């Protein structure tokens, strides 16, 4: 639940979670075992193809929601079901309350429904004097504790067996042991009585099949079978997004949903109910059955060109399972009612701007969620879009407006960077770091040392470095990005040097500027678009076949971000696509295009380990190239634990949430140190800034470099 007034308030809540040792340990273990479980479940499955099919199917359904509703209604009514449509949460609650009162129901058992959480149904029913009991074990536990879920699939993952034993002690009036098996049996017996007494059952629905008017319910515990069987009235509450034309659509989702949620091939129970079935507790031995569909903004969402894909979500919870921020702070802080990346987005649509304002800023943009989403939703991008939308609605903060203004004016931006070089002189150390942070930074930024701006920017070094290639085999242009241009020019110099012997003609278009990702991260979409156009124009002047970018974040933004930013712009969309075609990261260019060979390198290289930048391994889906390159270049590469987990940089994220950024950084460095490597290599200057700054603060002997620097050094002289 989100109750924080402002970002400051929100951050102090986050710090509370960081101090919760049990939560931290549980979520760490979970993150690691989930990854292995999911990989195992999908082995031998073309998961990307399956996800694409699901996405297409859900998109199609979303475009025909109204027709599907009509078809479902007709078929379900023919089988004796009452079908309702509620425009919002209040109306859904009112309808269900009236059903209970009309049928003279007093006691209600419920199986899990996120939609009922969305409408806060229990509160409403309890206000009417009805007794409501959640029967999913996790839901029951949190109901007894009067709190919301912290995970969509495992709602009580934040609680220990000790807390549950205490709670069950209160419920039974008898002291309880902390043995989990035993606690589960206590719940079984307590809840069995509730089913026996209930006169109404409320369930959710994972699928609503229009062709037959059937609902499909997915559970492991089997509680939904009892909820839909024993009481004489059954109400299923479902979002309109659960409507799907055929059984085939549902079976397809079932091939991914359980695997993605918990690594299971299939849940213990999948229950298909068509119509009012036999119920021996009812007078005519027929169940009184209702299906209540909830709109609550879904119809409008289906018409939104950008956000319609939100309706694809199948509620598997995987986006939380892989989120490095969720892993640190848990679901109460990483959502309002819906949790994880999708929760950040849905909160805005279902629960409003106030609840979403702080949340949407808490995305580090590592792309881990988009990589596993069962329905292929581009979650990080949509989170940024919401952030931008909120800023458009409420006014942009001064810092973000200024950033946007500065970034769109390249000359001003570069002049400022050069001015900063003079300004930093008094605090600049010989080792290239700032002795202490300039006044504009808060003290909490001190978890990592910040680098000084280089004496000479790459663009000023370029005339001296540019290689002379008489008969070029490859024509390439460099996109530097701000960090390499102004802070780490050596990385670009090394990039160029490592092409030696391959007849690569290199160009460096001077009109290039910041890629614009920071502007997008800050919700300044207009500035992000302006900069995109400037860069595309700058590179259209060059006849290069490839645009090499040795900053993973810039590269992924240039390749995928630009096309999306300029989508629908008749002039610029095609130009963005043509530009994107040329973008290639450093390691892929070396390994796949130049196809460098071991004999070009010295064979005795130092022991290195690797950090896979989010925007390379997921953003560009480049996984093998850097690892192959290190081995080819004669380096003794030792893989690092959790190599593909974010280092905590996330650009402006690390400025906004230093307490989270520093946790991720420390974990990363501990993993790297544990390999015993002398050097930690990576292919993103942003990561390097973070990692080096952390190494400096820890006083670690680990050396952090761009992979290009190590490769250039290994080249035979």
């Amino acid at each position: 639940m989100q109750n924080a007034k402002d970002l400051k308030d929100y951050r102090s809540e986050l710090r509370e979670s960081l101090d919760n040792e049990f939560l931290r340990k549980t979520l760490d273990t979970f993150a690691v075992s989930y990854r292995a479980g999911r990989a195992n479940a999908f082995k031998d499955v073309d998961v990307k193809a399956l996800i694409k099919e699901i996405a297409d199917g859900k998109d199609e359904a979303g475009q025909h929601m109204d027709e599907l509703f009509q078809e479902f209604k007709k078929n379900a009514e023919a089988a004796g079901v009452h079908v309702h449509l509620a425009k919002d949460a209040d109306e859904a609650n009112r309808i269900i309350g009236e059903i209970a009162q009309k049928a003279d129901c007093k006691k209600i058992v419920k199986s899990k429904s996120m939609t009922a959480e969305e409408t806060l149904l229990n509160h409403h029913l309890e206000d009417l004097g009805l007794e409501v009991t959640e029967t999913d074990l996790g839901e029951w536990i949190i109901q007894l504790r009067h709190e919301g879920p912290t995970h969509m699939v495992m709602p009580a993952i934040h609680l220990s067996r000790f807390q549950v034993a205490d709670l069950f002690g209160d419920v039974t009036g008898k002291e309880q042991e902390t043995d989990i098996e035993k606690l589960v049996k206590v719940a079984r017996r307590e809840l069995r009585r509730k089913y026996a007494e209930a006169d109404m059952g409320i369930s959710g629905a994972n699928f609503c099949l229009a062709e037959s008017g059937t609902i499909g319910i997915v559970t492991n515990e089997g509680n939904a079978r009892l909820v839909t069987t024993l009481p004489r009235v059954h109400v299923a509450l479902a979002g309109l997004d659960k409507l799907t034309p055929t059984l085939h659509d549902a079976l397809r989702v079932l091939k991914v949903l359980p695997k993605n949620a918990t690594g299971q091939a299939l849940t213990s129970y999948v229950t298909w109910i068509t119509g009012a079935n036999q119920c021996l507790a009812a007078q005519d031995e027929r169940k009184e059955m209702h299906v209540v569909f909830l709109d609550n903004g879904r119809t409008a969402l289906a018409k939104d060109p950008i956000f319609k894909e939100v309706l694809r979500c199948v509620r598997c919870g995987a986006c939380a399972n892989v989120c490095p921020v969720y892993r640190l702070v848990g679901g109460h802080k990483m959502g309002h009612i819906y949790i994880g990346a999708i929760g950040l987005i849905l909160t805005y649509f279902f629960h409003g701007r106030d609840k979403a304002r702080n949340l949407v800023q808490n995305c580090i943009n590592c792309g881990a969620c988009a990589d596993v989403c069962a329905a292929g939703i581009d979650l990080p991008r949509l989170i940024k879009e919401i952030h931008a939308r909120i800023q458009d609605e409420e006014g942009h903060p001064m810092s973000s407006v200024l950033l946007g203004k500065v970034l769109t004016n390249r000359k001003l931006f570069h002049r400022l960077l050069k001015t900063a070089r003079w300004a930093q002189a008094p605090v600049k150390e010989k080792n290239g770091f700032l002795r202490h942070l300039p006044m504009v930074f808060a003290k909490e930024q001190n978890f990592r040392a910040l680098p000084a701006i280089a004496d000479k920017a790459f663009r000023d070094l370029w005339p001296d470095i540019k290689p002379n290639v008489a008969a070029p085999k490859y024509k390439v242009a460099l996109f530097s990005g701000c960090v390499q241009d102004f802070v780490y020019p050596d990385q670009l110099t090394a990039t160029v040097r490592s092409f030696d012997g391959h007849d690569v003609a290199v160009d460096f278009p001077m009109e290039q500027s910041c890629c614009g990702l920071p502007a997008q991260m800050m919700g300044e979409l207009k500035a992000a678009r302006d900069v995109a156009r400037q860069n595309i124009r700058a590179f259209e002047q060059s006849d290069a076949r490839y645009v090499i970018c040795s900053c993973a974040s810039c590269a992924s933004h240039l390749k995928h971000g630009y096309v999306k930013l300029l989508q629908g712009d008749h002039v610029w969309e095609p130009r963005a696509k043509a530009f994107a075609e040329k973008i290639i990261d450093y390691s892929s260019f070396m390994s796949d295009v130049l196809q460098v060979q071991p004999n070009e390198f010295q064979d005795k290289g130092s022991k290195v380990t690797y950090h896979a930048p989010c925007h390379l391994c997921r953003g560009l889906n480049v996984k093998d190239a850097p690892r192959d390159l290190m081995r080819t270049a004669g380096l003794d590469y030792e893989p690092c634990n959790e190599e593909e987990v974010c280092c905590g940089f996330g650009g402006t994220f690390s400025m906004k949430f230093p307490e989270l950024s520093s946790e991720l950084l420390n974990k990363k460095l501990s993993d790297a140190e544990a390999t015993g490597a002398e050097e930690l290599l990576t292919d993103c200057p942003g990561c390097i800034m973070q990692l080096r700054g952390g190494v400096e603060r820890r006083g670690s002997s680990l050396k952090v470099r761009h992979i290009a620097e190590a490769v250039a050094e290994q080249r035979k002289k």
Partner: protein
Amino acid sequence: MSDHIELFKEKAKLVSAQVTEVASMDEAYQFVVDLCDKKEACQLMMSGCAEAVSDPAQELCDTKQRKVVAAPNLEEADFEKLAALCKAQDFDCIRQGMRQHLGGIDIGFTVCQGGIAETGTLMLESNDEEVRLATMVAEHHVAVLPKSLIKADSYDLEQELGERLGNGPSYTALITGPSRTADIERVLALGVHGPLELHILLLEA
């Protein structure tokens, strides 16, 4: 075909189901009686019946005094065979009236209408509420699955399942292993609301 059966066995075992091959229904009935004989009167003793619950919950539990086998979807003649074997052991054998046994029964015995090898899944027609209840309140669910009904994957079962759903009212269950939860500390526990054990009897047919 035999590939399907091997895959089915492998996948069912992965989800903690116990798979046994039987040559005939008579063998299946004998399996049920033997299993019922061997098991504790109340399996929950092992893992929870000894634990203190609230008084009303205990009262419901106390309604179960004798060993009970329920076989709600057997034909009359088949049911008589099973009932005779149960009687010889002094077990109750019932076909209906499950609502009088919500405190629990020992074994729910059913014959399934289909299986999915890819996931080790059973398809069980549950239009009759006695079938739903027998397979939920039983401590052990024993399910007969004729081998010839096993399909490779869910799409192969789609047409049959679709016909059931299209002819409402209908209630159809896909069952993959016993009832399970991992809601407390992500520790797997079987039998949270339904069966603690699922025995699948693969029948030569």
